[in-house]
Structures are given as structure tokens and as C-alpha cells.
């Protein structure tokens, strides 16, 4: 798990640290660096080259330190990725970690390279209803695309390879969206697959393209919670988008299923989740877990991140008002400044 990520000279993230938990919800005004931070983590994980002049913070082009993303893994170890120009960055693995002294530097380096390689599979989802409903050509080892595309391929695979989980998913779909009781499949053209939802009353089949945007988004997120083999980090931009406020608690459950598998009796590695939101309704669900909320603020082009639980007065503040109202008032920061 990643405990925090430090950024230096990366666009608006000139010198800041993003604290993370197994599940993290980032709130803040538009353009406050939420998505930039996620993209920076992805670039660092992939140790990908990039057009240096496009990512280095304005006025810091000549900074000797270059652009730096430092990943602080749990248990005190770190990985530092540094870009100095357009070429591939250097990755450093400082030696102050938890390995016994007998383990050689080479083995430690291999371990962290492997961790970084796993992290490079991270996904940043931003769902789009057209992508989710679009029929696909079936292929083995289907993966959900970053806009939710290929959902049908993933569902088809889940049904064939993990039928028990597919049944649980069907039950969950019915619980959240009682209008529907089952996910069905269709073959619109040779080799193609599309999905449908069957209505509980009348058993009518509704084509994916005829489902509402919110229904498609909810289905995509529920599916994420049930499919196996996730990367260690998943980011979702505004998972509440299009979803009725009363269903947001169920959405939170679905995401917690990934990051706290033990809470639903699953024995597997937790998946770290980072979400962004502008929804006061969604934010209110985290009142009892302020350590999971991070507030992004931007002042004079300078981004900062603050974990809500790190405010010494948070318990007193929340006795008086709902979290969403406190956020909206501006006393927590993370609001547009005009």
C-alpha cells in the first residue's frame, strides 16, 4: 500500500504531499490538482518518458532537482522517480527500508522494481455511458477500459470463470436496482457480445444502450467490486456521477469491498482506492472516517493536500454541522477562490 506521494515541480504540484489510506476520497475545487496527482502517480509507476517542458511547473524549468514523484510505501520504504528532461526518468530505491541487513541491495532493488511494475498497471477510471454500453468483440482476458468500455467482455468472463461471483453480482444489482433482476447477454453480430438487464416485473430484456446513465455507472462500479485480478491501485474520477444520492451508501460499500476485503469476509490482498468527488452527499458518508478524506486546495497556483483527520478541531467542528455543509462553508478549504 502507498502511504503518501510527494510531488516536486510537477505542473501545479510544485512541492506537496498527498496522504493516502486504503480508501481515499479527494475533494477540492475544479483545477486543484486532484486528477494531476493521479496522473503523476501513474507516470511515475510506469517510469514513462514525457515532454519535460509540458509537465515541469512554470518557473521551475531550470530547477536542479527536476520533476520528482516520491512514492512512500507502507513500512517506511520509498521509491523516487525523477525526470530531468524528455527521456525516461530515473527510479531510486533508498535503502532505509524494512529488509534485514543480510538482504543485498540488488535483491531490494528487484523487490521495489517489481512493486513499481505492479503499480504501473494502476487504472484511472472516468466512466462514460456510451463506452459502458457498447458491444465488443470477445477476447480472452478482457479488462475494463478506463471509460468503462468492454464491460460486457468482463461480465461474460466473470460468468464463465467465476460463476459464484457472477451470481453475487446479480443479487447486488437486484438489491441496488430492484427494477432489474439479472444480467443477460446477446450476440448482435458474429463474435460480438452485448449485455442486457432483465426487468424483475415482466422479465423484459432491456438493451444496454437503453439503460439510464446512472444505471450503467452503478453497474460498472458494482462489477469492479466483483471481478478478480485488480492492480494494486484503482482511481475513480467522480464515482457518484449520475447515481441517485440514496444509492451512494451502496456505492461506498462496493468500493470498500475492494479496499477492505476483510470487512466482507474475503481473504485477498486489499486494492487501494482513490476517488475524487464534488458531491456533498457522497462526502457526508465519510463523516466517521475523516482519515479517508483529503482536501485539495489551490492558492496562488500552489496546490496543497490535507487529510481531514489531521485537523485538530475536526471532531468539534463536526458536532455542530454536517461535513458537507462545513466543506461548502469554506472553513476546511477545498473551495473555489474567486
Amino acid at each position, binding site marked *: 500500500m502507498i502511504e503518501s506521494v510527494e510531488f516536486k515541480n510537477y505542473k501545479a504540484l510544485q512541492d506537496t504531499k498527498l496522504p493516502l489510506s486504503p480508501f481515499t476520497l479527494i475533494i477540492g475545487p475544479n483545477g486543484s490538482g486532484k486528477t494531476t496527482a493521479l496522473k503523476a502517480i501513474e507516470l511515475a509507476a510506469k517510469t514513462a518518458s514525457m515532454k519535460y517542458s509540458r509537465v515541469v511547473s512554470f518557473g521551475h524549468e531550470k530547477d536542479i532537482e527536476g520533476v520528482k514523484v516520491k512514492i512512500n510505501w507502507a513500512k517506511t520504504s520509498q521509491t523516487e522517480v525523477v525526470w530531468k528532461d524528455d527521456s525516461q526518468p530515473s527510479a531510486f530505491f533508498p535503502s532505509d527500508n524494512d529488509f534485514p541487513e543480510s538482504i543485498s541491495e540488488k535483491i531490494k532493488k528487484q523487490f521495489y522494481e517489481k512493486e513499481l511494475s505492479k503499480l504501473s498497471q494502476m487504472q484511472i477510471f472516468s466512466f462514460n455511458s456510451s463506452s459502458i454500453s457498447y458491444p465488443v468483440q470477445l477476447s480472452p482476458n478482457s479488462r475494463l477500459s478506463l471509460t468503462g468500455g468492454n464491460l460486457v467482455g468482463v461480465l461474460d468472463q466473470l460468468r464463465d470463470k467465476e460463476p459464484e461471483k457472477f451470481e453475487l453480482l446479480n443479487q447486488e444489482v437486484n*438489491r441496488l436496482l430492484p427494477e432489474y433482476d439479472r444480467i443477460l447477454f446477446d450476440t448482435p453480430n458474429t463474435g460480438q457480445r452485448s449485455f442486457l438487464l432483465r426487468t424483475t416485473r415482466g422479465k423484459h430484456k432491456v438493451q444496454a444502450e437503453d439503460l439510464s446513465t446512472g444505471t450503467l455507472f452503478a453497474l460498472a462500479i458494482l462489477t469492479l467490486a466483483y471481478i478478480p485480478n485488480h492492480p494494486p491501485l484503482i482511481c475513480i474520477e467522480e464515482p457518484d456521477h449520475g447515481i441517485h444520492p*440514496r444509492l451512494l*451508501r*451502496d456505492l461506498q*460499500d462496493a468500493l*470498500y*469491498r475492494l479496499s*477492505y476485503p*476483510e*470487512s*466482507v469476509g474475503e481473504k485477498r490482498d486489499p486494492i487501494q482506492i482513490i476517488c475524487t468527488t464534488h458531491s456533498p*452527499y457522497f462526502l*457526508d458518508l465519510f*463523516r*466517521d*472516517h475523516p482519515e479517508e478524506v483529503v482536501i485539495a486546495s489551490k492558492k496562488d497556483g500552489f496546490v496543497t493536500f490535507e487529510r481531514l483527520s489531521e485537523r485538530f478541531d475536526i*471532531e468539534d467542528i463536526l*458536532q455542530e*454541522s*454536517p461535513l458537507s*455543509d462545513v466543506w461548502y462553508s469554506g472553513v476546511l478549504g477545498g473551495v473555489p477562490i474567486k
Partner: protein
Amino acid sequence: MKVALLSESEVDEAFTRIIVSAILGEEIEKVEYPLRFRGWYGVLQLIPTVIKSLYYQTDAEAFAIVVDSDETLIHNPSHEQTIDSNCRLCQIKKIISETQNSLKLIPNRQQIKTAVGLAVPAIEAWYQCGIDAQASEAAWLVASKERRYSHIKQKLKKDVYKVDRASIPLMTKYAVEAANRLATDLSDIEKLFPDGFGSFAQDIRDWKDS
């Protein structure tokens, strides 16, 4: 009897439905839409709208609401005369009374009967009645002076649900189990939570007499 329940979640509604039916001695019939509030802060603004809608737009005969006391005052029968502004039960009853008095008379439409419950400090304490000796209004009075509320609330939830982040199905399972257990004999919960639950039960029993 057709009863509208205003609750914070489907979990609380599942619990309250069983308990209200048990107190009433008959299975309640539900109004068309489940009514929800989002935390304590919106309740007082919401109640007049809910009462008016139930009275003018539905055939609901009764209305029940249960809220958590959190750190606020435990209700006391002496409040009936003074209405303590730090007692949530008193505040809700005051709003209900003001709203009921403002309704226009409609021929053949009876005033909606109401019941207000105050779970001290949270509804999970009611679930623990008979299981945990610390689950009572008296025990909470002592405990609240010693520790921070949020820690007590977290511990209570953990004791009930066994995990830090319980899902809605899991919470509903425990809520329904607790409600069914308590419904077989309400005397313990009325004795241990006399002011928040006992007065709620009395309100409901009074429905039959009015």
C-alpha cells in the same frame, strides 16, 4: 395500521418496522415511499414537510421517527413541561405539535398519530440490549462523562457489526436479528432505555386509544 417511518437508512427502517409492529401487536402497513433523513441536522427542517405531505397526500394513519441522541441530553419526563432545547426528542415533538396545529381541517381526515424514539447514544445500543451490560441509558450517562463520544460510538458499532466498515446488507442482517430478538419481549429494552425507548413505546400504544 398504515404507518410512515422516517429513518436515516434502510437499516434503521428495517429495525424500526419490526419494533413498531411488535409494540402495536400487528404488522404495520407501509406508506408508498420510504422516507429518509440525512443525519440529525436536516431532521427538524424536514419534519414539517413530511407531516404535511403525509396528511394531505397519503392515507397514512401514523408516523414514527427514531433518531440517535449522539452527545445530546437524554430525554426526561420533566421536559414535558419545559421542553429542553438540547433534548432532540423534545425538539422533534415541539415541531410535530406546531405542524399538526397548522394543518387545515379536511373532512374525514384524522390527525396523524406520532411516535418519537431517541436511541441513546445510537440505535446500535438498542441492538445490544440484553447482550451488553453497558447498553442502557444509565450506563451511557456514566460512560459519556469519561470518554469521547466518537470512540464510544465506534466501539458500539464494532461490537455490533464485528467489522470497522459494515456493508448495508450486513448491518441490516444484525438490525433485523436484534429487532426480532427484542420483539419477543420488550420489557428489558423498555426498562433499560426508559426515556428514549420507553416513551416511544408508550406513544405507539397510545395510537390504539386515540
